[in-house]
């Protein structure tokens, strides 16, 4: 990654919730008449965390804004208004215009859309890949495990940020290629985390039991291992969106990501940075959107982790 993004590992490492998701008392309450189903319990815990709820609300607003925004303005993100060059926000151009006369509102909503799509797709793909690779390595063991881990470790040493920049520099600004490239170099850390969790799961008795019953390896990975790291995957997906958006922003900011005529929030910030004193609105609006997006996603991820964590005391006081 080209940005100062901290490694994903310390964030997701904590989610070893795996299976004993209920404390003994809650479990026994669940037993008695099924008063609290697991899902409702998670929901309750999540909703009690105001930060997470705020994050959810902000995200919902952003999604609506990204979808509906382009319909609210007569301009598209490529339209140029030669009568308004670098003009401040007005009734005609709500967020102002940039030096070439593009409408910043149209560009910001479009950029938000771009960043969201890239973030969600890349995070989804990397989570899936890392889940499958990590779990398979852990379950298969032996030479297969060694080989897979060897590849993962080597890819971690290879300066992926540089290769990323090289490739996106060459293929030039297409967001679909950017998704492929970010995915290709984004799954290794996750796979390692999944692997280390799965190795402890592998020793669980229900996995052994399945093996002794003659259940096939593929089935054990799909039916037993992956479902039981589900909570980790959910959390790492949300935090993966944050990491991807940050990475995309960084790449686009320094000119290696999404390029003209397409725009993303990172690219907009790159423009805005140059005119930060003369035309600050070019910085303010994309910066606000971007920060709201990453922080709301992070708050949701944090709330999910807390809600899925058996040791959490979010229950409050007696």
């Amino acid at each position, binding site marked *: *990654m*080209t*940005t*100062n*993004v*901290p*490694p994903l*590992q*310390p*964030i997701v490492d*904590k989610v070893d919730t795996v299976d004993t998701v209920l404390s003994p008392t809650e479990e026994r309450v669940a037993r008695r008449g099924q008063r609290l189903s697991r899902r409702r319990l998670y929901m309750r815990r999540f909703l009690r965390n105001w*930060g997470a709820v705020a994050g959810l609300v902000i995200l919902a607003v952003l999604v609506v804004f990204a979808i509906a925004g382009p319909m609210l303005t007569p301009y598209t993100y490529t339209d140029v208004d030669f009568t308004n060059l670098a003009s401040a926000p007005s009734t005609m151009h709500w967020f102002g215009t940039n030096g070439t006369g593009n409408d910043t509102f149209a560009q910001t909503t479009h950029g938000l859309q771009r960043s969201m799509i890239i973030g969600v797709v890349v995070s989804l793909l990397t989570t899936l890949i890392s889940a499958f690779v990590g779990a398979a390595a852990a379950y298969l063991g032996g030479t297969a495990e060694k080989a897979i881990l060897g590849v993962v470790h*080597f890819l*971690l*040493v*290879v*300066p992926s*940020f*540089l*290769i990323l*920049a*090289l*490739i996106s*520099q*060459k293929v030039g600004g297409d967001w679909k290629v950017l998704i492929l490239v970010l995915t290709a170099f984004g799954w290794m850390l996750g796979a390692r985390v999944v692997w280390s969790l799965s190795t402890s799961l592998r020793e669980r008795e229900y996995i052994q039991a399945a093996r002794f019953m003659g259940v096939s390896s593929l089935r054990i990975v799909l039916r037993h291992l992956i479902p039981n790291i589900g909570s980790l995957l959910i959390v790492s997906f949300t935090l993966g969106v*944050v990491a991807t*958006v*940050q990475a995309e*922003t*960084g790449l686009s*900011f*320094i*000119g*290696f990501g999404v390029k003209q005529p397409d725009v993303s929030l*990172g690219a907009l*910030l790159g423009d*805005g*940075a140059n005119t*930060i*004193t003369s035309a*600050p609105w070019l*910085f303010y609006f994309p*910066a606000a959107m*971007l*920060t709201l997006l*990453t*922080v709301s*996603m*992070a*708050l949701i991820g*944090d709330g999910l982790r807390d809600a899925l964590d058996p*040791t959490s*005391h979010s229950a409050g006081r007696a």
Partner: protein
Amino acid sequence: MLGYLLRRSLGWLLMIVVATNLTYFLANFFLDPRANYLQLRPPRTPGQISRSLAEYNLSRDTPLLDRWWHWISGIVVHWNWGYSPVGESVNSQISFRIGVSAQLVLGSLILSTLIGISLAVYTAARQYRFADRFYQGVSIITLNTPVVVASLAVVLLAIAFNQSVGSTLLFVAGAQSPTVNGFWPLLLDRVRHLILPTISLTVIGYASYHLLQRSLLLDNINSDYVRLARAKGLTRQSAIRRHGLRTSLIPVATSVAFAIPALFTGAVITETIFAWQGMGQYFIQTIGKNDIHGAVAVAAFGALMTAIGAILADIAVVALDPRVRVN
């Protein structure tokens, strides 16, 4: 122990060599130095371009393997990492930039670690109280604020600050002013340049240590041995400090060690915004200017830093944890 470290280092060295050579071929595939000459006026003929490039071992007319051999033997025999398409020496660029980056990176790393750990100790002892929730909220926000936004916000604040005091106290660009002489004035000048980028790196960096250390400490606070320490007669606070903190420092130390390489090459955006000529900025420059040798050198440097980080992490673990000492 030494033997173990030696073997680990050899393993890492092998990885670095492989990774560097891989990057060399990739860079040759993706970067074309001829492009640098195309905009020149008067226009050069392909022959002229090729001749100029051949001087720096970059001509496409020479077979790739020959160029590679020339390049690698230059490194092995003379420790010469080659030249940019316009003839700047990679060695001199890097040796100058490492110093610049180090100023930026080490200061903020130390600050981030100290602030992160102290905040963690403070908040973990107050779990779920207001102070804990407040600082945790702040940390989640700063951790997830995009670097670009955070750095530019620092710049805006600094400009406002300079305007309010009426003089340029804090410099928003560059590592030093060109026209300062004398030891003390020079030092002061450096500090005035250093403050803003250090602040912005620290703001985005401390939070991960805070959150990691806090959760590890909380795990430890509920551990049997902290409970036993309290049963011996330590107060909750001193049991956490004496028995909980040191044990839970191990993973944090590991993650700090691993952060060093990421910081050196990762401070790209900070260096760009504050116009520091460090390794990160060099990295953008080499790719932007089709500087194959420069880009490969950055890659090698990055891999080396990763290796150093990993070995430092090993040493930290051994120093802090008696359980892993090899007898």
